[in-house]
């Protein structure tokens, strides 16, 4: 049972999900509107981007999802995408007749949680609700780390959550609760209507000192509370503050060190604005991160993030999270990476309130600087951060491990998202960036479960389900042919393996794979050289493709088959042919 399914069962969602559709072409808009209605969503349309922004600004909570065309006369769709992600933190789906991978990449790097090609098919639209679920889930998951619903909530915070079914269930519960909380616009997931505690600098100092003393990883609200020794502060207050703090750290990790120094203030601003969390604008640091990372590189952390965002999310996260077995390792990996990178950047639209909206800090770099100079003194600059670096740094190390790292990418295939084939191709593109940029670790294919999710959810269309994807993948295929190798999956072989999250991932990946792709993986892993790597990648990729098939036999067979036809596979084929053939195995 997947989280999404649980959530679906929970309330009427996705029926009635509120979508804002933007497209200057009235024909397409009309069709889109009808398709969305057919999916039982609640639809609002506009043919102007400006109007769309107004609608969104007028009421933050009026919409769950935005679908926007890319080419619009009054405003570039990507710009709208950025703004929506920044200001409203809503998931945005791009729509375009441009199948050119460059556009797709652009969409992803600007934070789109999906990119659909025109003509839009209803099958694709039937899936889009998952982006809403996922974005909330991610936000909650961040807050999950700090949340102690039961005493076990704190174990290996960043790590354990994603590890297993138990964590799944816990997260599920957490999600459910948070889902309600969010809908109530209640920023404190652990309490209902208690008087709000204002976390002053002093209070936060104590908090940080307590956390430092306990050790970041081991810090538990009860203990923190005891150490802080503050009257009228409840465990819940501390718990939620810790949660936010952790989330905050994750967001800023992998980022400017400068911010670390002022993180206390930064953090406080965020949490106190807590409304700040809900609303906005916060310190530049995070804004810088976003701005810098995104703008500057869109690049370094971004593409992988983008990939993560795009690919992981729909498939990886959605699919993987739902699993309770081996893919947990993928999830595990995913989490820090995701949260580190994904959360930060690609999940722009997905960052939610609970975790504090770094993105919204973008407009205010100056302010922050001023604050910085003023308040530096009163804050414990390095200390708190020092205590926490273990966490973020592990993330970092698992993150863009620099160009030498190639990252193993899971196989998002199985995701229920609209476009698996499309994803593959896109992913392939992304990898060319990933190869040259930093690592983005992705979960191993969720295989069975996600497939079953898919078939569960889209039974009627399951066989035809793949078809639209195939169609959509075709345009991308040619682009791939030029440089197939580079597109191939990258595997993280280096130090990452030793890094906590990466390491675990790596190990479990190995473990998981050893049964299936033993020789391939080993060859890959042992080579550790780019060339051997890339060659191996293809196999690995094939192997992953195989994983989708949902059975060992299929996996082995497809692996072998694909190994044999390795040379023949073009990206398009790999993504498309292999995919669809495997699919039908299901």
């Amino acid at each position: 049972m997947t989280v999404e399914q649980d959530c679906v069962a929970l309330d009427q969602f996705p029926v009635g999900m509120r979508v804002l559709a933007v497209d200057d072409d009235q024909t397409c808009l009309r069709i889109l509107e009808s398709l969305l209605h057919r999916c039982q969503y609640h639809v609002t349309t506009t043919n102007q981007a400006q109007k769309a922004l107004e609608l969104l600004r007028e009421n933050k909570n009026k919409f769950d999802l935005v679908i926007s065309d890319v080419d619009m006369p009054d405003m570039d769709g990507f710009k709208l995408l950025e703004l929506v992600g920044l200001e409203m933190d809503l998931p945005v789906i791009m729509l375009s007749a441009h199948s050119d991978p460059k556009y797709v990449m652009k969409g992803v790097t600007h934070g789109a949680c999906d990119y659909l090609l025109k003509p839009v098919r209803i099958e694709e639209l039937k899936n889009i609700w998952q982006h809403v679920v996922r974005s909330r889930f991610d936000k909650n998951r961040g807050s999950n780390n700090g949340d102690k619903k039961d005493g076990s909530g704190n174990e290996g915070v960043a790590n354990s959550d994603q590890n297993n079914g138990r964590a799944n269930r816990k997260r599920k519960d957490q999600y459910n609760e948070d889902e309600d909380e969010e809908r109530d616009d209640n920023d404190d997931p652990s309490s209902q209507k208690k008087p709000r505690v204002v976390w002053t600098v002093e209070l936060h100092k104590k908090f940080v000192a307590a956390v430092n003393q306990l050790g970041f990883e081991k810090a538990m609200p009860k203990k923190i509370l005891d150490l802080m020794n503050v009257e009228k502060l409840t465990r819940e207050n501390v718990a939620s503050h810790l949660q936010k703090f952790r989330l905050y750290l994750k967001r800023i990790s992998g980022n400017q060190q400068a911010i670390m120094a002022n993180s206390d203030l930064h953090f406080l601003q965020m949490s106190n604005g807590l409304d700040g969390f809900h609303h906005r604008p916060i310190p530049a640091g995070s804004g810088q991160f976003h701005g810098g990372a995104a703008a500057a590189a869109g690049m370094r952390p971004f593409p992988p993030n983008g990939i993560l965002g795009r690919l992981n999310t729909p498939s990886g996260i959605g699919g993987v999270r739902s699993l309770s077995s081996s893919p947990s390792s993928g999830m595990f990996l995913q989490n820090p990476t995701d949260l580190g990178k994904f959360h930060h950047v690609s999940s722009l639209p997905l960052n939610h309130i609970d975790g504090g909206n770094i993105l919204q800090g973008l407009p205010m770099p100056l302010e922050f600087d001023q604050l910085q100079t003023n308040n530096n003194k009163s804050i414990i600059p390095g200390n708190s951060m020092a205590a926490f670096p273990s966490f973020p740094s592990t993330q970092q190390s698992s993150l863009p491990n620099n160009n030498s790292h190639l990252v193993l990418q899971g196989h998002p295939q199985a995701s229920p998202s609209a476009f698996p084939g499309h994803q593959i191709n896109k992913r392939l593109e992304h990898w060319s960036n990933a190869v040259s940029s930093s690592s983005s670790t992705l979960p191993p294919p969720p295989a069975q479960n996600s497939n079953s999710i898919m078939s569960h959810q889209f039974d009627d269309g399951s066989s035809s389900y793949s078809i639209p994807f195939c169609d959509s993948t075709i345009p991308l295929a040619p682009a791939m042919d030029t440089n197939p190798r580079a597109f191939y999956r990258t595997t993280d072989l280096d130090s990452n393996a030793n890094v906590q999250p990466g390491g675990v991932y790596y190990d479990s990946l190995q473990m998981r794979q050893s049964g299936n792709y033993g020789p391939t993986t080993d060859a890959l892993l042992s080579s550790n050289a780019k060339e051997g790597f890339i060659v191996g990648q293809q196999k690995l990729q094939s192997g992953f493709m195989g994983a989708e098939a949902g059975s060992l036999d299929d996996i082995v067979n497809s692996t072998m088959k694909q190994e044999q036809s390795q040379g023949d596979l073009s990206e398009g084929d790999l993504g498309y042919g292999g995919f669809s053939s495997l699919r039908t195995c299901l």
Partner: protein
Amino acid sequence: MELVQMQKSLQDYTKSLFLEGVLDSQFLQLQQLQDESNPDFVSQVVTLFFQDSDRILNDLSLSLDQQVVDFKKVDPHVHQLKGSSSSIGAQRVKNACVVFRTFCEQQNVEGCHRCLQQVKQEYYLVKNRLETLFKLEQQIVASGGVIPAMELGF
């Protein structure tokens, strides 16, 4: 019965459009979206398409007739036409647009002119066919009949 014959004609006619590639499965999707709550959906959308396309084709003619052709203006139009034609299932129009765009990229004025002609031709063809289709449908409805659902079998 006349009604039955009309319905049969409609089906055959529609089928032929698909077989000729004038329309593709996207059009089917549109038809499927039409229901009691949305009874004139297809004709509404198609009407919108005609309006948009007439305008675009006009703009394109003007742009290409300029002394110095501004391809930066031409391309978005073609792109939009491609998007809308693909959305309603006007396959041949869409295909013509695809070719058109490659000539735009190459900044080949001569080629673009030819493409525009091609696009126009395909457009008028599909327009004509669809109008006939709607007439047939109207006749059926006027005779008290129901428009038969299109089989996907072909």
